């Protein structure tokens, strides 16, 4: 029984170490091709534009709709509490700060992890199953440069843009509810929002979104490269990619929020 248990732990640990080794190699190679490699051999501009469209432009509707809904929900929940103490005007503070510092970056990242992170895994996984990755290697094309770098750059450029869009949409939604349903004056709501949100809140959210972009891309492509066998493995890895990304996004958010609480 003990031998069986030890064997199981050893097998599990061996797989975890191999996995970690592969992830470290991926990070190392991606860092090289993003920096030195890009200067030496250039960037595939066509692929970058394609990925920017897929990751950024095509995500605009879903990010805007969800951010709008979240802004409305936040305004209504804030009003529910603030009405009791007659401080309805602070709905603007609560909505704008919550969105700029936390919900904007995190919700956008979770939506993009579900959309694009899953797509990265499925694309690379399917290419692996169809021997397309092997074909790239035998043609002397580096899969990291060819597949990962355009995705990584697109994510780094587009996730902060989507976060800004989510921030703006969520705040507008809070204002719409404040004016239409809670009887607040539009000008007062606008002024109160400007007073509440400082530039550092927006910038802090964008810094978070950059770290989320790294998490989504690296987890997505790493899980894609781990696909083995056939369609079942693609499905399993895609699920794992979304779950791992969301878990790491929340963990990173927790870390950044704790840091900002300690140092401000």
């Amino acid at each position, binding site marked *: 029984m003990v031998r069986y248990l030890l064997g199981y732990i050893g097998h599990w640990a061996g797989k975890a170490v191999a996995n970690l080794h592969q992830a470290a190699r991926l990070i190392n190679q991606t860092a090289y091709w993003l920096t030195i490699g890009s200067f030496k051999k250039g960037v595939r501009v066509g692929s970058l534009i394609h990925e920017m469209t897929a990751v950024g432009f095509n995500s605009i509707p879903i990010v805007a709709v969800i951010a709008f809904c979240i802004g409305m929900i936040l305004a209504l929940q804030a009003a529910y509490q603030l009405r009791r103490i007659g401080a309805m005007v602070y709905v603007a503070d609560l909505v704008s700060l919550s969105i700029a510092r936390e919900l904007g970056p995190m919700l956008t990242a979770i939506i993009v992890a579900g959309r694009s992170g899953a797509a990265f895994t499925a694309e690379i996984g399917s290419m692996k199953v*169809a021997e*397309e990755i092997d*074909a790239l*290697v*035998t*043609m*002397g*094309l580096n899969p990291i440069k060819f597949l990962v770098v355009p995705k990584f750059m697109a994510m780094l450029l587009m996730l902060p843009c989507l976060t800004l869009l989510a921030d703006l949409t969520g705040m507008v939604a809070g204002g719409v509810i404040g004016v239409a349903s809670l009887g607040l004056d539009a000008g007062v709501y606008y002024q109160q929002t400007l007073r509440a949100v400082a530039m550092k809140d927006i910038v802090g959210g964008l810094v978070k979104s950059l770290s989320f972009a790294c998490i989504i891309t690296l987890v997505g492509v790493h899980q894609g490269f781990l696909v083995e066998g056939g369609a079942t493995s693609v499905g399993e890895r895609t699920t794992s990619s979304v779950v791992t990304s969301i878990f790491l996004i929340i963990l990173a958010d927790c870390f950044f929020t704790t840091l900002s609480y300690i140092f401000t």
Partner: protein
Amino acid sequence: MTHLPNHNQDPSIAAIEVRDLVVHYGPRKILDGVSLRVFPAEILVVLGGSGCGKSTLLRTMLGLLRPTSGQVLVKSKDITRLNDDELLEIRLKTGVLFQSAALFNSMTIEENVSLPLREHTALNDATIKIMSKIKIGLVGLSGYEDFMPSQLSGGMKKRAGLARAISMDPEVLFFDEPSAGLDPITAAGLDDLILKLKKTFKMSIIVVTHELPSVFKIADRIVMMDKGLVIFDGTVEEIKASSIPRVRQFIEREPEGDASRTDQFLEALNCG
């Protein structure tokens, strides 16, 4: 009992030489000391039953797998020990047609064929287009340049994959199960194409397959593998006359004794 290599060519002129290759997948030994030579302008067929290690041999010869021990010498350089830049030099002179053709589904046929030229040469767009068209024409797919891979039949995909494999004018061309999944007429057409390529470009061609009609039609020399070992190395006539039981069983298409026996199944699995 094995048939040893009997070719008369000078070993020093071999385009590729594999020496005592041992490859493991985890604890399973897939190749157990494989040695062979591929000479310039010859078609070498690597023959063997499913799971005998021939695809593993191909992947190791392509530098996609690292062997446990042994060497794969290309132009006297052991590719198992080369760094990425040195390996790139070898890869630019090597073409591969994968079993599934491995065309990039998001690109047209012309884009697939021109990809290596765009990435590895400084040629202008017009020249690359002309060169791609020539290669596409050579495999009989003129007029299909703007088609997506999903719009082509299995045989046409293989031809397109072949056009991409020869786009850089390789000195060595690998085929992994070229006839798999094709009807006999399409497979025969592909065999003719392989012979035409050898005649036109004088390249060394390595074909991994278990399709006997195809083997007898195209092979200059045959290497037969079983359980991770080379058990035969000779010409078509020699394999037809071979008295090695496993070779005879393969040539005469005799079934295994009792396919449902667990020990035989596990043994086959262990062989890879």
